[in-house]
């Protein structure tokens, strides 16, 4: 069976590349995913998915029905991208053309996460085309507002859409960039609004520096990854306008496994209280940064800027079975975790594992280092490898066992 899957996956190379290019050519910054959503839905119909749904948040869900309803697997990638970090003129290949050069596909979102979308859609198609029976349903969900909306799309999918379909995933695989490794988690981060109410606004910068120093002293510093960032300060800090006694600083702090957001906030509020003592009449409030946003379909939502750290047990049967399946298909595999080289990055894994208790791993064609970077690109061979790898993982987890049977014996 694996020989057959490998052979057939190779035929999907150019269609998958073409589709990824099409997605890259369709700009889909967060909250503006309408056009790309339509293309994804259309492709699912073409590829023969049994049911294709666009839910109230704009997520696109394709389903391949299994023989029974359980165990059910969710393949998830997000359709939105971050804005280009630099203007198009700075890219040596244009960000919205999807140019393939030197076996790499270039463009904004190529890695994060449009090649992942293509790999997952075609993985489902591959299994369906080869008539590989599945015990439970295969759900391929391409969700909105992951980059800017902190996975509100996937949250809605799990809270409302899937339950309305009578489906609860037993496992989830994210198509986020993992460079074809099996990723089992990442750190989180929390964005905090530090609001000052102070009689002397010139204190604000000093207070910020003091607070940041205090927080930095009490955080881990044993790796090279960013721990703390000051995202923004509002103008009032710099103006020393005596009429403005309010200022706001937005901080982003890394969260580790086991960190509790409430206790982090309490701790920082504690530092703030200490800091207040040194500045008479100053009051500092710490709370999670929230924003009101509007999805592409007009729906208004409120987003809290918090991504909890998450980790699936690296010795769990999910990772073990996935590793075994990929190895049998002749693909190399190694486990790892996303590094989150910038604070503010994340995946839907946090929501899936922490809130909905769905064991989750990541397996995608892109390289995390390329994500959100200028000249973002993905190796095209990785897309084919990801189609095959994702298909064999799905078969290994929810496929009907095929032990003892061979499909390749010719007459």
């Amino acid at each position: 069976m694996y020989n057959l899957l490998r052979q057939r996956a190779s035929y999907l190379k150019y269609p998958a590349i073409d589709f990824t290019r099409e997605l890259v050519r369709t700009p889909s910054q967060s909250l503006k995913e309408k056009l790309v959503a339509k293309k994804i839905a259309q492709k699912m119909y073409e590829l023969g998915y049994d049911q294709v749904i666009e839910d109230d948040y704009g997520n696109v869900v394709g389903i391949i029905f299994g023989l029974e309803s359980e165990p059910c697997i969710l393949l998830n990638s997000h359709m939105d991208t971050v804005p280009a970090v630099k203007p198009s003129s700075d890219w040596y290949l244009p960000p919205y053309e999807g140019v393939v050069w030197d076996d790499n596909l270039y463009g904004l979102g190529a890695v994060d996460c449009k090649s992942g979308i293509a790999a997952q859609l075609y993985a489902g198609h591959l299994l369906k085309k080869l008539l590989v029976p599945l015990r439970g349903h295969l759900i391929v969900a391409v969700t909105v507002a992951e980059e800017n909306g902190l996975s509100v799309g996937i949250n809605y999918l799990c809270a409302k859409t899937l339950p309305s379909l009578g489906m609860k995933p037993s496992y989830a695989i994210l198509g986020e960039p993992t460079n074809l490794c099996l990723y089992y988690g990442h750190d989180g981060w929390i964005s905090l609004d530090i609001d000052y109410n102070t009689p002397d606004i010139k204190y604000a910068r000093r207070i910020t520096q003091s607070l940041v120093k205090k927080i930095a002293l009490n955080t881990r510093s044993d790796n090279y990854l960013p721990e703390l960032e000051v995202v923004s300060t509002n103008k009032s800090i710099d103006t020393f306008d005596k009429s403005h006694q309010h200022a706001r600083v937005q901080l982003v702090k890394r969260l580790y496994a086991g960190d509790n957001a409430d206790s982090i906030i309490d701790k920082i509020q504690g530092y703030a209280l200490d800091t207040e003592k040194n500045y008479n009449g100053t009051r500092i409030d710490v709370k999670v940064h929230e924003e009101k946003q509007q999805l592409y379909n007009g729906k208004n939502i409120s987003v809290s800027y918090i991504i909890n750290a998450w980790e699936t047990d690296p010795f769990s049967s999910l990772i073990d079975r996935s590793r075994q399946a990929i190895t049998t298909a002749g693909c190399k595999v190694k486990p790892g975790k996303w590094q989150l080289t910038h604070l503010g990055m994340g995946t839907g894994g946090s929501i899936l594992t922490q809130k909905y208790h769905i064991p989750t791993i990541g397996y995608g064609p892109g390289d995390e280092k390329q994500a959100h970077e200028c000249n973002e690109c993905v190796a095209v061979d990785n897309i084919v490898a990801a189609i095959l790898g994702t298909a064999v993982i799905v078969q290994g987890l929810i496929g009907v066992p095929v032990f003892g049977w061979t499909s390749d014996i010719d007459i």
Partner: protein
Amino acid sequence: MNVFVINCGSSSLKYRLIAMPEEKEIIAGEAQRIGPKTEEPSRIVHNSGGHVDTFFVNMTNHAQAFTEVMKIIEEHQKIIPDAFGHRLVHGGSALNKDVLLNSDILAKLDETVEYAPIHNPPSIALIKACIARYPNSPQVIVLDTAFHTTLPLYAKDYAIPVWLSKKLNIKKFGFHGISHHFVAEEAAKYLGIPISRLNAVSCHLGSGGASLCAVVKGQSIDNTMGFTPLQGLVMSTRCGDVDPAVTLNLIACFEGDYKAVQSTLNKNSGILGMTGTSADIRDILAKSVLTEGYSSPYFITSHIYTWRLKKYLGAYLTIAHPVHAIIFTDTIGETVPYIRKEVCSEMDIFGVHVDDKKNSYIENYPSDISESWSPVRILVVKTNEELAIARNTYKLIKNNSGD
């Protein structure tokens, strides 16, 4: 020469002191319930010249059991054995024949554990305890697998990639070799044929494990057990032959927990697994078709048991042809006429004809239960693994001292 023979079970230790070459048994006994506490206390049942004593002593492991046994023998019998014969179930890749123990061999013993992780460790612990107590006495290791080292390649190999077989030393080892060899020798004596000319099919049917062995010119050419004792016949709790796809499916069902699968196939299959009530075929046969019906699990189980036996018997009669004798031995083979009859009936095509009258009642062992005109004799021979170990021990020591 007084040879002390030690035969370890998982929670027992059988011993005999046998005067060789006379083959006279001086002492026999068994240490029972070794290891964790059971409902009844651990004990040594000691038989000396027909007089049986029971000693209740604490024995948490086999080494301790050995010490207690030897204390009894030294203190009560005032005997110190001249030599020791130890049974080892599996020699692995380190040992492929019976050996006189030396420091090199001793160093290799631990390598054999992985091949028989349940049986070998107590035997090795016991060997070490014996050496410590009697460092100057010759010690011989007699292997259950040694008799089957003569299997030809086409019988020993499995049809898996050669590199894999070589890497993991995967081949058919065969088991119950001590018993099969012993009963073949006894059968040859009984028939008046030199062992080097004997062709036979030996059926070691125990209340636990069971195997058939095809013997040609006194040498084993095939055995129903394989790389492990799991292969072959239907046994008390082992499944015997099974489609590899079943094992793979079970591993997937148990989410990769191969130990659980191993336990299921070894301890919760076979007669016990099929009936759910007993692991002993005698209990199953006792529930006759008249009381339980042809579709009852008991009838079906007994039918599967005898059917597979019969097929293997036919297979081995074919490869060992012309066969002088079929030999039945061990608990079931020696004491259950129904099994012998079922397996040997309608085997005229092989020249096998069982005499029902002789089969139903056996006075002496060995006994011939075939029709007088049957080209192939059917013998029932009592196995005596301890005597076989004593013979091999004596022979090896004599040859060694001769050298």
